[in-house]
């Protein structure tokens, strides 16, 4: 601590800071030690070696350290305590998650002049129409995934909100597809994904679309 004034420091005759009133508001102590450095040490930060050496013998520093440690003790005690959550927190969270699965979702398209909301059923319909144009698709329905998402018995019909998920800039659509065996299933799936993603991004301006496909059946001509 090059700022220390040795003449102002010196050994304490009594206990820590016995005859010195600590002043935490001043920037530096009479010995030249920055008060902030002492407060850091009192709150548990490691002391630089030169400060540790000096503070061990300086009455001003010892007085400030002693006072600061006393002030910091309630914080230290609080840091040792955890705050138990309400006993019903887990149940409340899971109930909210389940409610979320039943609420109508919509895609929000913010604009400086107002906000546009596109209902989940509209997104599902756009996806169905785009998927239907893919070669190899005989039939397609937006597939309700709510039951799987929340571990509840299935209750929704295809084409509802459960077929569409919205997370920030990502739209997730689940489709049930019937193929006609004219193309390999992976190729059909790729084509469906590309068409649906292109159509959704084109119509909504959203950055990304994820398309989950469940091949439900095949028809043989």
């Amino acid at each position, binding site marked *: 601590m090059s700022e220390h004034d040795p003449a102002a420091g010196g050994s304490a005759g009594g206990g820590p800071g016995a005859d010195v009133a600590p002043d*935490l*508001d001043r920037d530096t102590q009479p010995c030249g030690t920055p008060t*902030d450095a002492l*407060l*850091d040490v*009192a*709150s*548990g*930060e490691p002391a630089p070696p030169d400060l540790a050496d000096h503070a061990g013998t300086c009455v001003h520093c010892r007085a400030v350290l002693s*006072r*600061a440690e*006393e*002030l*910091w003790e*309630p*914080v230290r*005690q*609080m*840091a040792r305590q*955890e*705050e*138990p*959550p*309400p006993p019903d*927190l*887990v149940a*409340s*969270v*899971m109930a*909210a*998650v*389940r409610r*979320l699965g039943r609420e109508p979702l919509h895609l929000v398209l913010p604009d400086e002049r107002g906000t546009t909301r596109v209902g989940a059923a509209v997104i599902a319909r756009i996806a169905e129409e785009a998927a239907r144009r893919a070669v190899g698709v005989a039939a397609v329905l937006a597939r309700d*995934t709510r039951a*799987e*998402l*929340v*571990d509840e018995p299935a209750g929704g019909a295809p084409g509802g909100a459960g077929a569409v*998920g919205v*997370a*920030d800039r*990502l739209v*997730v659509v689940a489709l049930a597809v019937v193929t006609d065996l004219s193309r390999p299933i992976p190729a059909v799936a790729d084509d469906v994904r590309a068409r649906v993603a292109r159509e959704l991004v084109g119509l909504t301006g959203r950055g990304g679309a*994820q398309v989950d496909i469940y091949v439900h059946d095949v028809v043989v001509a």
Partner: protein
Amino acid sequence: MDADGTAQGDAALVALAREGCGGGFEELVRRHQTRAHTLAVRMLGDRHEAADVVQEAFVKAWTGLPRFDDRAAFSTWLYRIVVRESIDQQRRRARRPLPVEQDVERPATDRTDALVEQRVREDAVRRAVRALPEDQRAALVLTAFLDLEHAEAAEVLETTPDAVRGRAARARRALMREMGEWA
């Protein structure tokens, strides 16, 4: 279980939850509810508000799972949501007048009972923490109360370890001086 083991277990549960497994997500809630609640209580200084904030944070975590970056720990991501929700909650509260019953009495000279004294000191700490600027408060709570390393707290707050170190130091000094006013 050690931190690495917990993180690996979390990763498996996150993968399950992403597949739509409610049970996987429920286990994540069970694992992290106490730390998340402690974080919110320390950020807000109010248990009722903290419970609401933590519930909302977990629901946001559920809806945000598709955006979760697997390279981060689930706890880091969750704490980030809790901190943001707590700050939003405090901003909403700032627009409302503080109820009279939340005002903390200064210790009276004739109150010598140790429990009363401790309670008053805890209230003083809560109030002083709540009065800190948002960035300092978050850095202090994560490092001093949740005992996170500067690097981990920096990840939660999306800043650098040096920035966390500086904010936490300013917060500690301000808190100590404020406590000096109360003592």
